[in-house]
Structure formats: structure tokens, C-alpha cells
């Protein structure tokens, strides 16, 4: 049952990522792309967690943790570039 659920979830996440990809490439506006990338990242985190459950291994969580942190920095950097040009001032 759980395995089935796991695969369903993976399927959903995969689909979600594909949807994000569409938004990422079609924009239309830059913020849309940033948002799409951010969402894609969060979905990836979900994916990693589910994958960890699937493989019954906990070594991948740090990756998810780091991804959460880093993804945030990236998003802010992208937006700050559009707002100010200079991301550190």
C-alpha cells in the first residue's frame, strides 16, 4: 500500500515538475520564471523526501535541507537583481 502511495506521490511530483518547467520556459514575465524555479525546487525537496522513504534511507535529507536554504538564496538573488541590479549593496 505504502509503496503504491509512494509511486503515486512520485508520479504527482514528477508531473508537477513538468508543469513548472512549462511555466519556467513560457514565462511570460521574469518573476513568473523565478516563481516557477522556486516551485520546482520545493517540489524537488518533496521528491527527495519521498525518495528517502522509498529507499528507507535518511542520508538524503541533508540535501533537501540544503536545497531549501539555497533555493531561498537563489530566488532572492534573482528578484533582487531585477529590483536593484546589484544583489549586494
Amino acid at each position: 500500500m505504502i509503496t503504491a502511495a509512494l509511486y503515486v506521490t512520485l508520479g504527482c511530483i514528477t508531473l508537477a515538475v513538468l508543469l513548472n518547467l512549462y511555466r519556467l520556459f513560457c514565462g511570460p514575465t521574469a518573476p513568473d520564471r523565478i516563481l516557477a524555479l522556486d516551485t520546482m525546487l520545493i517540489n524537488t525537496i518533496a521528491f527527495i523526501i519521498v525518495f528517502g522513504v522509498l529507499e528507507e534511507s535518511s542520508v538524503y535529507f541533508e540535501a533537501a535541507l540544503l536545497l531549501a536554504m539555497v533555493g531561498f538564496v537563489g530566488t532572492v538573488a534573482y528578484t533582487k537583481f531585477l529590483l536593484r541590479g546589484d544583489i549586494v549593496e
Partner: protein
Amino acid sequence: MLLVLLAFLPFFGAACLLAQRNGERNWQTGIALTSTLTALALLLMLAPTVLDGAVSVFRVAWVPSLGLDFSLRLDGLALLFAGLILGIGALIIVYARFYMPADEPIGYFLALLLLFQGAMLGIALSGNVLLLLIFWELTSLSSFLLIGYSNHKAEGRQGARMALAITGGGGVALIGGLLLLGQIAGSYELADILASGDAIRASELYPVALVLILLGCFTKSAQFPFHFWLPHAMAAPTPVSAYLHSATMVKAGVFLLARLWPALSGTELWFYLVTTTGLITAVIGAVIALFRYDLKAILAYSTISHLGLLTMLFGFGTPAAVMVGVFHLLNHAIFKAALFMNAGIVDHEAGTRDVRLLGGLAGLMPITATVGIIAAASMGGLPPFGGFLSKEMMLEEAAHTAWGGWFWAVPLVALLAATFSMAYSFRYIFHVYLGSRRDSCPAKPHDPSFGMWAPSALLVALTVLVGLFPTTLTARFIAPAVAAATGMSAPVFHPKLWHGLTPALVMSIVAILGGAFALWRHGWLQRIWDAIGLPEAKRLFDQGIELFVESTRKLSGFVHNGSLQRQLAWLFLVSVVLGIEAIRIGGYAPGARETIPAPPVAVVAWVLLLAGVAAVVKAQRQRYLTLIYISVIGLVVSLAFIYLSAPDLALTQISVEVMTILLLLLALNLLPKTPRRISSNARRLRDGLLGIAGGGAAGWVAWAVMTRPPNDPISSYHWERSYAAGGGTNVVNVTLVDFRAFDTFGEITVLGIAALTIFALLQPATRGPSGQRLRQWIAVMPHSPERHPMMFAVAARLLLPLAMMVGLYIFLRGHNMPGGGFIAGLVISIALLMQYMASGFEWADNRRRIDEHPVIGLGVIIAALTGLGSLAFGAPLFSSAYGYFTLPLIGKFELTTAMLFDIGVAMTVFGAVMLALAELSHIAQRAHKEGPCDDSPMDIDPARMLEGGR
């Protein structure tokens, strides 16, 4: 031993002179003269035994593997030549002392002269052909300097360059020739080579070797068609010409012909090459000499002509001819040196060397005239002087030599040469000294001081004596020389003024009459000659060189156009081609490892990646977009690492990814955002194809390897030892900090250097044109005035400690779980950078009181010391140790030196990243602001505003 002394004396003298460069004139002359005369004395001390047929040798190994020994060899021929070099050298030095302008120091000049003398002496004495080569090239070099001595004059420089080009080029050929000769003979020792003449002549390499060697000799001895450098060498001060072109430099080629005569001569090839060249040169030289106006030019061409005659004689290949050659070599040296000095005196006193302005000087400068007339007579071959004897004998030999079927060819041409040399000698006599007085010369000529005419007078006296008592004076020297040159006992040497009515006598009479006629009708002949107007060798030479230079410029400019794209295209192309070539020759068989079926998730990830790649390439000129797309790629790659069980890689990739993005965004801010397209479609097609080729190759190779079973990799050892010997369960980390700690050491060094370089690059960016650009820089798109958004600032403050905690944790667990110093360093720097982004550089920087430079330095040092420390425990460098310790309450815990190493890693990474990004992040501000100003951490701070409001 004396031999070595002899060989080195001139160089020693030169050194002394250079030391005394600004010394007193006579003192310098003294030094030069002493060294030369001492050398001469040494030579005479050695002479008797040599003249009795013994050969005195000295030999020490220098480069045994090459067969190049420092071996000296003094036999009859060497003795004669060395005697000439030193004897005339001494006279030249005296002459130069008085000739050279009193106001200019002559130390440097004399030093060069001695240097050259040493080189010549070396040629004469070398017992090893490679050693001879060295001295040979040295003469080219030193003569280059001597001819270029008056280098403020264009002709001086050009003459020198031309001489070096021709003789140096010949020297290069000679290198080849002599190497081949040595290869054939099996030794570079002269003795061995001379001994194995038959073998040499038999070898199939003989023609090549011969031609190369002759190229060397002919260029040096100014044989046609290489004769033209010699007249231009006349730009040198007269003493130089007198030395180089009478007794030494130009004789070197002829000497070598004589030296190698036993090894090379006696073949058809030898006869036709050498004799013919000699004949042609003899005639051409003599003819041109007749029509020159400059005294030195006349003498120069006459030298060419006489060298031609000598060459011809050695070409005949008979011992008798060699004997005549040696004898004439001696005579020519004597009268030609005298004549050059004489011409110099005329120049010095009359202020010109132009024959057209001179005339009837006999009355004004009787001594000079006497000397000049006798010497010229000897040159032309008038009895009873030395020149007459050798010319007679030369004609005699020529008369008995047939060229192919034509028995008359050689004598006729030789006669022609003799006639013309008679003619220009008459001209030298009559147009300068005799005939009507002219007032056309600039100065009032009179006899020079004793010191200046004495040397030439001495030589003239010599030539007279040789003419009168040839046998008694010269047989003692000539016979051994000839014996040495031919390698067989010399034929009887009996030069006489009167042989009876021999063909030679007839020919000389004809020559004299012809000469007289030419003198009588000189104006007429001159007009004809001018009418013919032969091509000028120098112009051709210069044009040739220029053409050569230009073509190399075209070639080099075409190849090295400095285009990066070309460089890279070649690099990729060569890699791909060689790779394919290797597979082709090496052979390939598909692997047997079964593959892992790909789940849909993986396929989707793959699609994501390809899409990202395509997008980056497509959106290439919308740079901001490419940065967004490229992080999709980074994301997928990290995912791949996670999926394929490489958590460490995933962590690293993720954190490096964001760093790269920050870096690129920082840079992009100041770079063009959407630049014009510049590369043509053709270019893009080419690059596309190249890319596909490279990509295809790389992908295929990856596939090929992944689909074959691993070949028992060394890492199995690491796996087994990781925990037991390395004290960690994360084998990757143990590999990094222990098994291959040395790599990691290098790696962090690289990172540190990168940061330092970036710092060094950006420091001056605020000055000069770059600073101006920064100050004039205007944003392309309108910016929001808010620099430090409140919410972000607050979140960053909360995240900083959390992130640091995470970083420390990742560091501590690294040895056993995914993580480690590098990732920890990155995480912590990211956390700190968040502060920079949120609250601005100034504000954050003032709150972080660490200078990155020492952090980097200490990081590297700690890592290095950990590596070095193990020595203290008698363990090899970069050994690690670990132990489990127990403390009350705390309990059991592990400590490893590897962890210390990892601290070094973390520090370096942190320092490097912070230094680089911090430096990059505020060049714009640096360009604008002068003093540092602590900015507000957030633009909208309600609390502060409230206070402001109250």
C-alpha cells in the same frame, strides 16, 4: 700543454683588454701586442719538432657522448696558418694603434681583434672537427662585431649583418657536413677523419657531406656566388680589413679545404665543384676589381679573385697543386696585408680612397708609394717578387689540368684571371702613385708616422726576400705544411724566378702585356663596363631578406591572429580526432555489464536537463534568462547525484551551484545584458557541428565505459580500510581527508589562489578607465529605490544562526556521513552572504570583523601543518591518526587529525568564497564612495521610524 696556453692566450688578452676598456692607449696596445707576441713565441718554441714532421697534440674529453673532445693538433699546415695569423696580427695591432683616430679609445676594438685572433687560431689548431666548428662560428660572430665596429654607419651595420648571414649560413651547412663526415669516419677526431679518406669517399653520404662542407668553405672564402659580402665588409676600419681579408677570416675556408684535402679530395665531384667555383670566382673578382674606384674595394675584389685561384688549386687534387696553393696562400697574405695597410695610409693621409681623386702621390709620400708599388707588383705577379713565383707555379699547374675534355679551359680562364689581376695591380700603381699629380684630394698627403708605415714596409721587405730567396726562406715551412695537408710527403719545392721558357712564362708575359693594355685603355673599358651595368649583389640580397621577412610576417600573422575561437576550435578538434584515431588503432568491443532500467522519474529529470541545456543555448543572448535556466541544469545534476547514491556530491553541487549563480549575477549587473549577435551563421554552423562531434564523442565514451564491468578498482582498498584504518565510515570523506589528502591540499590551495587573484584583479578596478566606466555606469532598467527589503532582512537575521548551526553540524558529521569541511565552509559562507544581500555590504562587513586573507592563509597552513605534523610522530607526511577518547559525563568520542585537516579545508573555502564574492559585490560602490559609511540594515525599519517620528 704549451698548445693549450697558445690557444687560450688571445682570449685571455681580450679579457684583459675588456677589463682595461678605458685604459691608456699605449698600455692597451701593449697588452694586445704582448699576448700576440707571446703566442707567436710559443708557436716558435713548438715549431722545430713540428717542422721535423712530428705532430704535437693536446686532448681532453669534453662531451664524450658526442665525441666532441677539446683536442688541439699542431702540424705543418696548422703551424703555417697559425704563424700567419699571429705574425700579421701583431703587425696589424701596431698599425691599428696609429691608424685609429687618436680621440677614440681602442681597448674594445683591440679586444675584439684578439677575440677574432683567438677564434682563427682555434680553427688552425683544432684537432676535432666539432671543436673546429665552434671556433669557425666564433670567427663569424667576432667578425660580425668587428665589421659592425663602426655601427653608427648604416653600411657598417648592413655589412656586418650580411657577412653574418652568409658566413653564418655557411657555418650552419658546415655543421651538417662535418657531422656527416664524423658519422662516416666514426669519429670527429681530425686524425681519424684524415686517416679514413677512402672510406669517406666511398660512402653514399659523401656527396651530401661534401656539398655541405664546401658551402661552408665557399661562403667563408667569399667564393662565387657568395662573394658579395666581402666588399661590404670593407665598411670596417682598415686594420680589420687588413687582418680579416688578407691572412685570416677569408683564408679560413681555403684552410679548411686544405685541412680536409686528404679526406675529401681526389673525386670527380670534388674536382668539378671546387675547381670550377675557384676559376669563376678568380675571373669575376679580378674583372670587377679592375673597375672599382675605392682602393679598398679594388683590394677586396682582388682578394676574392686570389681566393678563387687558391680554391682552384686545391680543387686540382694533386699534391703539387696543393703545394702551390699553400705557397700562394702565404704570399697573398703578405702582400695583401701590406696593401690594405697601404690603402689605409692613403685614406688616412689623403682623406679619400677614391682612385679618381688620387694620383701622383709618389712625389708626396715616397715611402708609402714604394711600399704600395712593390706590394701591388707582387699582387699582380711581377718579378722578382713572391707573388710572381706562386703565380708562375699556379699557371704551370693550370696548364697541365684539363676540365672535362677541354684541356684548354682551365689554363685559359686562369690566364684571364691573371691578366685582369695584373691590370688592376697596374691601376693601383699608376692611378694612385704614378702619373700626374692631382690636387683633387681633400687633404695634403705626406708620409705617415713610422709606426704606421713600418708594418707594411716589413711585409713588403718580406715579399721581396721571398721573391729573391724563395727556397731558403720558405721551403722549411712549405714542405711540412704540404706534407700535413696532403698526408703524404711533399713533392720537391723549388720555386725559381727563371725556369726557362715554360708555358707558365709565356702565360705571365701575356698577362703582363694584357694588363698593360687594360691600363692603357682603362677609360674605354670602364665605359663599356658601366654600360653593361651588372646587377648589384647587395640589392638582390637585401630584397631577398626583406621578401623572406615579409613572407614570415604574412605566415605568422595568418596563423597567430590571436583569435580565442580558433585556439579553442583546434583544441576541441584535435581532441576529438585523436580520440577517434585511438579507438581505431586500439580496437573496441562493447561491454558486458547489464544496465539499470530507467524509471519514468529519471526520464523526466533527463528531459528537464536537456530542456535546460537547449534553453541556455537558445536564450544565449538574454543573459539573465540563461542564468535562470542554468540553475535547472544544476538542480537536475544534483538530483542525479542523489539518485545515483552520491550524497556528498549532491550537497557540494547544490551549494556550489548557488555560489556560481550569485557570482554570475553580480558580474552580469555590470556586463551587457542583451548584446548584439556578432558571429555569422557559417561560424555558428561550424561551432554547432564541432559541439555535436565533441558531445557525441564524450557521450559515447561515457556509455562505452559504463557498460563494461569495473576493472577491480583500487577503491576497494579504500572501502575496506576506510573505517578500520581511516576511522570514518564516509569513504568519500575519508578519501578526501586521508587517502588522498594531498589532492585536497592542492585543491584548497587552488581555491585560495583563485580568491587572491580575484582580489588582486578587482583592487585596481576602481582606478583608470575601469574606474571611469564604473562611475559613468548607468542601469539599463529602472530600479526600485528600496535596497534592503525589511522582510528579507529580518528573515536573514533568523536564518544566519540556523544556517551556521547546520554548517557546523555538516562539518562534524562529515567523517562518517555525507558532509565535511568543504560543504560546511560553503554553507556558512552562504549564510553570511545572505546578510550581505539583505543588509548591504557596508553594514554586514562592519559587523564581521574577520579579514579573509589570514583565514585563507591559516587554512592552507593548518592543512599543511597537519600533513607535516605526522613527521613528528615518525609517520610519513600527511598520515592521519584517530582515537576514541572518554571523558567523564561526556562519554566516548572520536578525534582524528583528519578533522584538523578538514578544519583547514573549511577555513580556506570560507575565506576564499567570502573574499571573492565580497570583493566583487562592491566594486561599484567602491568606485563611487570614498570613505566607508555604515548603511542602514533595512530601508524600512518601523521601530526606528517611530523614534524618528517622536
